[in-house]
């Protein structure tokens, strides 16, 4: 019974959390983003007392049920283990806990957090690992399917689906996603919950609470025939049949053993007496080496042969825009400051996966690896959108409203004279000024003493919010003639 409830709940959670990550339109995210708030690391980073209290209470009552039905990464491993179990049943064995490894991983995460090595924290957080996998590997597939449906819808003149751009947002993030998937798949295929009980710091923290949980699996020694079936079916390898003991720090309350036991020797209930004695041994752990080459999509543009005579039709090739060298990265409105974002962000990619203006992408910087930053080759941070702020579970992007968003200065525009088409092509332009939502750009004569001289943009940095409209709409390619420099500290204008 426990197992069936667990499976049902986990399937529901898994589907919903995955959908939450896959959605790019914001329609599903708007209804499901609360799921992200139930995750332990985001709750801790957001100082979300209610979520933390509920999770602690759940663990103190039911044990590590969090790992079985709330953590998407845990459920993903169960899925792999279930597939593996189809080939070979009863393949697990009891093994003593590898406590030294667990505690050192927990220590590594805490030290990394304090030392500000945010990329390491992100790598160790199971929720963000799942986010990275879902966003980098599953979302493109989801989008392709959507685009297929959009093409069909278009054929029938329906607007039910619209096509979206699928593009490689960050190669390092894709590499991490593929590497983590491979490692997790191998570990789960062979040993069930190995990752959760040796590496995952969240598992280790919850383990300490689960020792004292109200409900636990325990043996009725009088009924047990020492058949070992429970232990062989335990993906956490935590049932020591010889001593009739269960390692509650590793038990994820999956209920498999309860169904395996033919003699009713195992029960999930409040224990009368309590003992626990885990011991140490070693087992080889998986290294984290993986090199995956991601495929870069390069649009090959055939240059238009331009004859001398004027001919009609055809489209000029559009050279792909390259991001400029920003001395300070531009962070989304609501990030408050570079420090706030980097400390609180667990790099779960929820904001990146939901940015339908194609502005946010994971950082490639080693320290802030996979945390969101903005760039404007494919769109700009539009005034009517604050989706990233709506979904962020950690408060790394504060939940600011639209009014506040449009008056938040996240950076300022900088003009690069030698790129400007007014200079290079000798044409009138002013597209940056025309589209600046805050009216921070004015077109002024290049030579102040000559009203006839070409008009070039001048940025009033006090009014500029750094939304990137100018950079996106600048016709200069591959490098825009006006670009946004980020600010370490955001402020309200």
């Amino acid at each position, binding site marked *: 019974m426990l197992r069936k409830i667990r499976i049902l709940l986990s399937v529901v959670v898994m589907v919903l959390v995955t959908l939450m990550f896959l959605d790019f339109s914001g329609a599903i995210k708007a209804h499901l983003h609360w799921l992200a708030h139930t995750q332990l690391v985001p709750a801790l980073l957001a100082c979300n007392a209610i979520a933390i209290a509920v999770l602690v209470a759940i663990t103190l009552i039911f044990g590590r049920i969090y790992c079985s039905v709330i953590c998407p990464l845990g459920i993903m491993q169960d899925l792999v283990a279930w597939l593996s179990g189809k080939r070979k049943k009863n393949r697990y064995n009891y093994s003593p806990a590898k406590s030294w490894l667990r505690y050192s991983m927990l220590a590594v995460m805490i030290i990394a957090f304090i030392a500000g090595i945010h990329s390491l924290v992100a790598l160790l957080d199971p929720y963000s690992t799942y986010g990275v996998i879902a966003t980098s590997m599953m979302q493109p597939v989801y989008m392709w399917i959507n685009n297929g449906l*959009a093409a069909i819808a*278009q054929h029938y003149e329906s*607007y039910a689906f*619209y*096509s979206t751009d699928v593009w490689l947002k960050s190669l390092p993030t894709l590499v991490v996603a593929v590497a983590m998937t491979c490692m997790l798949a191998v570990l789960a295929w062979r040993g069930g919950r190995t990752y959760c009980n040796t590496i995952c710091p969240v598992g280790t923290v919850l383990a300490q609470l689960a020792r004292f949980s109200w409900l636990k699996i325990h043996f009725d020694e009088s009924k047990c025939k020492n058949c070992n079936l429970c232990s062989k079916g335990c993906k956490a390898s935590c049932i020591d049949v010889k001593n009739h003991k269960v390692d509650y720090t590793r038990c994820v309350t999956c209920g498999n053993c309860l169904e395996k036991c033919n003699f009713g020797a195992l029960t999930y209930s409040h224990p009368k007496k309590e003992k626990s004695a885990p011991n140490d041994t070693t087992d080889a752990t998986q290294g984290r080496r993986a090199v995956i080459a991601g495929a870069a999509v390069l649009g090959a543009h055939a240059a*238009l042969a331009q*004859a*001398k*005579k*004027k*001919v*009609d*039709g*055809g*489209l*000029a*090739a*559009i050279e792909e825009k390259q991001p400029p060298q920003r001395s300070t990265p531009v962070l989304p409105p609501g990030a408050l400051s570079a420090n706030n974002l980097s400390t609180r962000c667990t790099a779960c990619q929820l904001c990146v996966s939901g940015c339908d203006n194609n502005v946010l992408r994971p950082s490639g910087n080693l320290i802030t690896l996979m945390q969101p930053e903005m760039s404007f080759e*494919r*769109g700009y941070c*539009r*005034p*009517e959108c604050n989706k990233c702020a709506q979904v962020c579970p950690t408060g790394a992007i504060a939940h600011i409203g639209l009014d506040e968003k449009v008056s938040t200065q996240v950076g300022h525009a900088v003009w690069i004279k030698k790129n400007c*088409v007014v200079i290079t*092509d000798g*044409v*009138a*332009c*002013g*597209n940056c000024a*025309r*589209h600046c939502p805050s009216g921070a750009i004015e077109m002024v004569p290049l030579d102040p003493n000559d009203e006839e001289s070409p008009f070039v943009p001048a940025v009033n940095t006090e009014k500029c919010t750094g939304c990137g409209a100018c950079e996106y*709409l600048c*016709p200069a390619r591959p490098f825009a003639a006006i670009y946004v420099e980020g600010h370490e500290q955001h402020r309200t204008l």
Partner: protein
Amino acid sequence: MGKDKIFNRRTFLKALGLGGATAAAPAVVSCVTGDKQASTQEPPVGKMTYRKNLKGEQVSILGYGMMRLPTVGDQGSAREEKDAEIDQEMVNKQIDYAIEHGVNYFDTSPAYCKGLSERALGIALARHKRSEFYVATKLSNFAPETWSYEASVEMFNNSLKELQVDYIDYMLLHGIGMGDDGMKCLDERYLNNGVLDFLLEQRENGKIRYLGFSYHGDIQAYDYLLENHDKYKWDFVQIELNYLDWKHANEINPRNTNAEYLYGELVKRNIPAVIMEPLLGGRLSKLPDALARKLLERDPEHSVASWAFRYAGTWPNVLTVLSGMTYMEHLKDNLLTYCPLQPLDDEEMRFLEEIGNQLAEYNTVPCNDCKYCMPCPYGIDIPAVFTHYNKCLSEGNVPRSTASPTFAQERRAFLVGYDRSVPRLRQADHCIGCNQCSSHCPQRINIPREMHRIAQYVDNLKQQKFNDEKES
């Protein structure tokens, strides 16, 4: 226009009685012979209506325009892929079909279809006897680099080569009145450099059989060439005529002239008119739903487009009506209309005039998707933006108020459709206003201004903000 309306409907109807074309009119009933028919969609062979030119040669009332040729892999929607090459096999097939059904006038230009139209037409026509068709092309010396005598002559000779012919049947000065200053352009392109004299010479020695000009834009240039008709002896003139432009061209864009005046000037001098844009680049076949319904109610068996073709063909001084038929369906539908032509009666003319009045109220951008403005050096797909905007106007998907109960639905249709029709980097917001396009526009649209207006509208639509906008 302040010009006197020398040609009203009454005189037209008188002329109609005299016009030879009406003789064919009763034949149209032949398709209803009492027996049940297998199909009404197959045009009959040997029923084409013909008009006579000044020398009495028979020209089919349907002329094949080669400006909108089919391309390989064309799905009709993904504009990005429309850069594909011309589908020669399809061109051959359609031209064979057209000739088989009596079409004998084929109109091209060295500028059409990225400069590939003449060659495609030449290949297709080379498979037919020279006596089976008349070919019309133009001296499209638009670029200042081609204004010299030598370059223009070279362009003419190249047309002969591309078309694989020894002589051109109908030769046109191309786009008279275009450019920022129509008269100056005319001087530079044809008069000062002796190019017109060259063409007159060629008419003398038979390399050109008939000489005319096509006109868009500055009325001074039109009037000038007609005032000198005694000197140049125009054999035909190509003008834009349809039931919208007849009375509304000037109202829609003050820089343009009503077809009523243009046509009247030709009748005065007995110069046959070749009609272009009878369908306004498809805008008269994709009418707003409400107007399309009116036409279909009156005649459920014929297409919306057929009305526009009958309208153009009804004018007796019209030699041929050009249609850029991209698809076989276009060709068949037009053949059904013209095999033979059933001219509009007085009441039907009034009805269409009323449709034209109502259509003028829709404020569509008068773009006919001719692509003369293209390629935009900054990558904008100008005609695609206008086409989408016009389509949404006709379908009622250009919401102006968030209070409307169907606002969300219309907004989605506009925005999703916009991204479908035009890739984001080619949309109106990327127009920098360099204005290199406007002088190429035969409709004399102020393209940057329209682009910026549409970009502003899209931005408002995205933000659902409509306080500062009043559409002109």
